[in-house]
């Protein structure tokens, strides 16, 4: 056993100890204090383990199997650090560490009965993750020391690798604390859990949103990942808890049972997502390793969900009906989550039922999300007395007029314009009101809603895009696509260490505007090829060009026009800005 493994075993021991003393702590306060101490131990031990792994990466210690498989001498140091979460073993350790950090923050800042009650739940979840990390064993030594590591997959050598996985993890893991709070609260009848869970949810929701958006942006520029959103199981796994978390953020304060249900479901969905991506239960473009670990997650879901259900049924706290529209919006979001869930597990379920595996195209999700999404916008429009003011109705009429002028026909564009305009009008109205009163926190909330409308508009527009493959273009030859004229001027090879980058120079003309795009292909010594996609972003549409093949005298290109892409990203940025604004306003209250 090496130092890392010893640390992990100690970590497991202290979290088991914390769980036991947490359970005893519900009878005697002394034990709760002991449990808090053990959480400090869990955090320090998991931190040391993580540091050891990170140092092994930085110091190129290829005697560790995990390091040898995910790094090599030539890797820039930033990617050596990000390689910590590039594989299953490391990402589970990272998960454990973040979880222990969150638990400790929570326990240090709160010393009341409710947090005493949350302590055993948090410790039990930690114990589960300790077991998982030990089982997957990031510190496994190889019987020999290889000369060099296998290196990180070139596709993961992307700046998004720094931001995307950690923010997703922060989002996912952050839902554990409110889960513990809600169990403690419902079991003891202390209704303060709800307000405090909401603050944690806001934090986790913000990072989950950041994680999803960065994932979209990353996927957008990688050829073969199906654009910014492809309804891939891994993407759905992040969307489902996002939907239920959004529903909880809108849950009216007096609907205790409903809120409890949402908190529990959100937590279980984060675990379910991890199960989906690791069990090989469904196949994904973003393939994860198949491993027996997947079924540990399933068992954990059954256990934790079952006990939460039991506590919920016996718990005190009354459901009172309140908040018509907010509640309705939560129901619609849950329906969307249910649909995503069914669509995601459909391939596996169809195999069980009919013996034939079936897959679902994106069409399934789009058919259902479109009408339900529209009803969300209708709710956006009528909430907070939106019908009483002329502005929303005015904007709605204006956008209908614009859409009809542009020649749109059919129910969807017309309804989308009506409801979308209505929603935008109403959120603008609310935003103006808070801006005038100087209430920036509430303004943040409206910013989130404005961003959502803009995002949805962009997503709708992007579905109207076109794509095409142009083959066998020689230097000096021209081709046309989507109103652009292209001339291939030539190729320029750039030899780099361990690989060769070949760029094409494309002269593009659109009307009077002229510019150059240089999509490229990168050939690695190991035989893998990656694509350097070029995107020319405009306000109304993006031009997306990838070189997909190149021979001595000709190249093939994959071209795509994505209308409204800028709205997707700017809407997303507004959502994030709004969410952070709300977080900052609640800074003093957060993490309780």
């Amino acid at each position, binding site marked *: 056993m090496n130092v890392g493994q010893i640390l992990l075993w100690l970590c497991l021991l202290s979290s088991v100890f914390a769980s036991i003393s947490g359970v005893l702590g519900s009878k005697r306060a002394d034990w709760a204090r002991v449990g808090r101490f053990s959480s400090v131990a869990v955090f320090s031990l998991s931190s040391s383990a993580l540091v050891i792994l990170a140092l092994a990466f930085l110091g190129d210690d290829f005697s560790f199997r995990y390091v040898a*498989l995910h790094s090599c001498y030539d890797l820039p140091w930033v990617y050596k650090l990000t390689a910590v979460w*590039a*594989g*299953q073993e490391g*990402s589970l350790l990272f998960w454990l560490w973040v979880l222990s950090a969150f638990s400790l923050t929570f326990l240090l800042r709160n010393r009341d009965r409710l947090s005493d009650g949350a302590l055993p739940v948090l410790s039990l979840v930690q114990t589960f993750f300790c077991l998982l990390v030990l089982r997957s064993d990031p510190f496994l030594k190889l019987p020999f020391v290889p000369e060099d590591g*296998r290196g990180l*997959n070139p*596709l*993961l050598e992307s700046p998004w690798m720094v931001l995307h996985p950690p923010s997703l993890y922060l989002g996912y893991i952050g839902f554990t604390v409110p889960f513990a709070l809600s169990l403690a609260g419902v079991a003891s009848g202390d209704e303060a859990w709800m307000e405090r869970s909401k603050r944690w949810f806001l934090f986790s929701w913000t990072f989950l949103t950041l994680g999803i958006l960065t994932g979209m942006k990353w996927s957008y520029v*990688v*050829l*073969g*990942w199906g654009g910014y959103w492809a309804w891939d199981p*891994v993407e759905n796994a992040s969307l489902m808890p996002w939907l239920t978390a959004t529903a909880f953020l809108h849950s009216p304060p007096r609907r205790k049972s409903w809120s409890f249900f949402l908190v529990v479901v959100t937590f279980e969905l984060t675990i379910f997502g991890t199960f989906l*991506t*690791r069990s090989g239960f469904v*196949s*994904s*473009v*973003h*393939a*994860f*390793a198949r491993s027996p670990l997947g079924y540990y997650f399933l068992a954990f879901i059954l256990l934790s969900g079952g006990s939460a259900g039991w506590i919920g049924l016996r718990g005190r706290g009354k459901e009172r009906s309140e908040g018509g529209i907010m509640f309705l919006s939560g*129901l619609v979001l849950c*329906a969307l989550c*249910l*649909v995503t869930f*069914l*669509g995601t597990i*459909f*391939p596996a379920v*169809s195999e069980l039922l009919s013996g*034939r*595996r*079936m*897959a*679902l*195209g*994106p*069409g*399934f*999700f789009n*058919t*259902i999300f479109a*009408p*339900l999404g529209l009803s969300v916008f209708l709710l956006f429009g009528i909430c907070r007395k939106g019908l009483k003011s002329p502005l929303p109705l005015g904007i709605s009429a204006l956008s209908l007029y614009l859409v009809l002028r542009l020649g749109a026909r059919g129910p969807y564009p017309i309804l989308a314009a009506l409801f979308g305009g209505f929603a935008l009008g109403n959120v603008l109205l609310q935003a103006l009101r808070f801006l005038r009163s100087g209430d920036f926190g509430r303004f943040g909330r409206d910013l989130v809603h404005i961003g959502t409308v803009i995002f949805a508009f962009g997503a709708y527009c992007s579905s109207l895009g076109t794509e095409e*493959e142009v*083959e*066998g273009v020689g230097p000096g030859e021209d081709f046309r696509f989507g109103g652009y004229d292209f001339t291939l001027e030539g190729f320029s090879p750039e030899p780099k260490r361990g690989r060769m980058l070949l760029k094409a120079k494309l002269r593009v003309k659109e009307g009077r505007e002229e510019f150059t795009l240089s999509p490229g292909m990168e050939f690695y010594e190991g*035989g*893998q*090829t*990656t*694509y350097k996609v070029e995107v020319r972003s405009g306000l109304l549409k993006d031009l997306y060009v*990838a070189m*997909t*093949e190149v*021979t001595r005298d000709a190249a093939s290109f*994959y071209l795509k026009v994505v209308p409204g892409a800028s709205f997707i990203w700017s809407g997303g940025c507004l959502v994030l800005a709004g969410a952070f604004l709300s977080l900052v306003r609640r800074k003093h209250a957060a993490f309780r």
Partner: protein
Amino acid sequence: MKKLKFVLAVAAAALGLSYLILMGLRGAKVYYLRVEELLSSPELWGKRVRVEGEVVPGSVKRGKNLEFQMAGGGRRVRVIHTGPVPPLFGEGKHVVVEGTYSRKEKAFLSGKILTKCPSKYEAGR
């Protein structure tokens, strides 16, 4: 009275949602087969399906279209692919192709290749 209204509302919502789900399923479900299943189910030839298999090493020909042999369950099928080729495509790789099997050409005409990409990449083991 209030209870009846509630039950009616729930029933209406459930009906609406199931209708939407059925509509979605009708348009979007695609059979997902392994190579040997494709070859042994002539009733699915000509229909849009996804097929999973391994690219046979040494069989990839890059001409006007990409052509390769895909193997699975001890059988092979010739694949003719038009469209972009994703980065992780290569000999010996596990891929999923989407398209139709053509009786006439005795080949699978693919319009889309999905490779296993590495969110949590485990180097091709």
